[in-house]
C-alpha cells in the first residue's frame, strides 16, 4: 500500500509541475514567425509559438515596435491566435523583442 501511495504522490507532483506552468525556449537573434499563444496585458508580455514549435516569452520594452499593415498599433490589438512575425535580439538568455508585426 505504501508503494502505491508513494507512486500516486510522485506522479501527481510531476503532473502538477507540468500542468502548472509552461516551459519557454531561448533562440538565437533573428526573425521568427508564429502564433500568439497567450497575451498578458498587465505585463505587456506575449507568448509566441513559432512555426518550429518553440515557445518564445517576449516582454515588450519601450523600444519594441508593434505594427500591423505598416502602421504602429497599440499593445491591446494583440490577441491569442494571431499570426505574428517577431524580430528578437538575444542578450544572455533574454529575448528582447525589437519588432512585432501582426500578419493578419
Amino acid at each position: 500500500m505504501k508503494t502505491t501511495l508513494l507512486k500516486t504522490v510522485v506522479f501527481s507532483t510531476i503532473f502538477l509541475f507540468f500542468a502548472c506552468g509552461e516551459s519557454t525556449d531561448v533562440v538565437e537573434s533573428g526573425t521568427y514567425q508564429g502564433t500568439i499563444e497567450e497575451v498578458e496585458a498587465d505585463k505587456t508580455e506575449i507568448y509566441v509559438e513559432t512555426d518550429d514549435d518553440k515557445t518564445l516569452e517576449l516582454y515588450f520594452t519601450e523600444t519594441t515596435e508593434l505594427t500591423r499593415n505598416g502602421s504602429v498599433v497599440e499593445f491591446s490589438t494583440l490577441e491569442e491566435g494571431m499570426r505574428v512575425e517577431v524580430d528578437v535580439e538575444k542578450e544572455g538568455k533574454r529575448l528582447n523583442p525589437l519588432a512585432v508585426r501582426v500578419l493578419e
Partner: protein
Amino acid sequence: MQEIPEFWRTEVFHPLSVHFPIALLVVAFLFKVVALRFSREVWELGGTILLIAGVITLWIAIFTGDIADGVVSRKICDPTILKDHENLAWTTAWIFSGGLLLDLLRQLKYPVFRNIFTRLLMILLLAIGTGTLGYTGHLGATLVYQQAAGVYVPSGNCAEFE
C-alpha cells in the same frame, strides 16, 4: 549621476513576503511529523494553524511574485531560471493547498477521511511540498545573488550615496 531608487518598488514586495510561507510551512510539516509520534493536541492543531497561515502567505507570495515578474524579467540575463522558479512555486502552492485540504477534512472529522491513509498522504504531500519549497527558494536566491533580480546595483564610485 544615477539616483538611488525608491525602496518601495513593485519588485520589492516579493522578497518581503516570501519568507513567511517558507518559515511557516516548514515548521507546519515538522509539527505534523511530531504529531505522528506524540498525541498531544498542540502538535496536531498547531500544525494545522501553521499550515493555514503558511498556505495563505504562500498564495500572497505567488501574487507578489507575479507582479515582480513583469519588472524583473526585462532586466535579468537568464529569465528561464525565473520561469522555473515560477512554475515550481505554483506546483508548491498546489501541493500545500492539497495537503491543507486533506488536513482540514480530517480535522473537521469527516469519517471517510479519518484514517491513516489520509494522514500519511497529507504528510507525504507536505514532505514533497517542503522539498519543492526549498528548491523554489534556491532558484529565487540564484536570481537575486547571480542575476541581481530586483536589486539596485550602485555605481562603481558610489557617488549617488554622497
